[in-house]
């Protein structure tokens, strides 16, 4: 198999496998009703998954060595406070990201761990 056709096979395979995971529930529950238990937790899934996605963003944080996740925690607390206060999504997101970039690029919190 040539390099190009191997590559195209791989791309097609990964594309199909990815689409399968996304389409599975729609195909499965296309012609039948989802079980009652599932439909009751259905609306509790988005809040849970969103918070899990946030926790997932912290998966590579080294909690037990400096800076002990301080830039991440500090940024998340700031974004939360700003958002509860102003309720302006764009402001909260971009001010928070700018803050985080400052904190890590200039190692601002390093004084805490002298």
């Amino acid at each position, binding site marked *: 198999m040539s390099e190009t056709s191997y590559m195209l096979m791989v791309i097609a395979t990964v594309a199909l496998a990815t689409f399968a995971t996304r389409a599975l*529930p729609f195909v499965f529950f296309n012609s039948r009703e989802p079980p009652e238990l599932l439909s009751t937790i259905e609306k509790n899934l988005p809040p849970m998954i969103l918070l*899990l996605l946030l926790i997932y963003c912290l998966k590579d944080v080294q909690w037990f060595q400096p800076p002990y996740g301080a830039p991440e925690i500090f940024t998340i607390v700031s974004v939360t406070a700003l958002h509860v206060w102003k309720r302006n999504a764009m402001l909260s997101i971009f001010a928070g*990201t700018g803050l985080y970039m400052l904190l890590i690029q200039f190692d601002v919190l390093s004084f805490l761990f002298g």
Partner: protein
Amino acid sequence: MNHESEKLFLSALRTTLPVFFGYIPLGIAFGFLLAGAGYHWIYALVMSIFIYTGAGQFIAVALLAAGAQLMDFVTVTLLINLRHSFYGLSLLDKFSGVGKVKPYLIFALTDETYALLTTTRVPEGASKARFYFYISALDHLYWIVGSVLGAVLGSMLRLNLEGLTFVLAALFVVLTIEQYYASRTRFPFMAAIGAGVISLMLFSPENMLLFSIVIGTLILMVHEKITKRGHADLPDTEIYPKEEK
């Protein structure tokens, strides 16, 4: 485009702006990786158009570099992306009646697009199908542009973008808070913290998301079963829609 759909498009554009700032650097990083592994930028374009998944594409490059078998690509991709099946479960209702864009919406259901679709309200009087399509297609476009940019520029670009991808974490913070205000029960958040902390401790970083979603869903189901049994003689309050504020 007429005036109405132009307004709707701009609204979708504003909604997806944080994803733009997340997907462009992430896409660039993917492009760098693929170019670094010796592949032409055209593959970045093809992969990002047809595969369109963040972690999955990064891992595909790693498997390519290792010369893996096709079966390995299937297994790894299914495991990495199985979480998407849970996303669809909570969108069965939302996606019913969106018409011919439905297959595309399902195809383009990434973490970030899921987050936006489940939290953003469709503007008053606008078409849900159109709005969802704009959001999904814009996010897709950002990913494509970012990855091609990264593959073309290779390591020529020397911008210090360190930390920019935290924009996605900030997006999830804001969307979680919005869900908190909109949700009548606090239990999903407690379930998430429990499942998240357990998974952080027990599983490797690349596996934790799927496992945490599975554990969290189980917690929700058990909780639902227990509270249901406890209130078997009471009318089911769940069937009365909450007053919208």
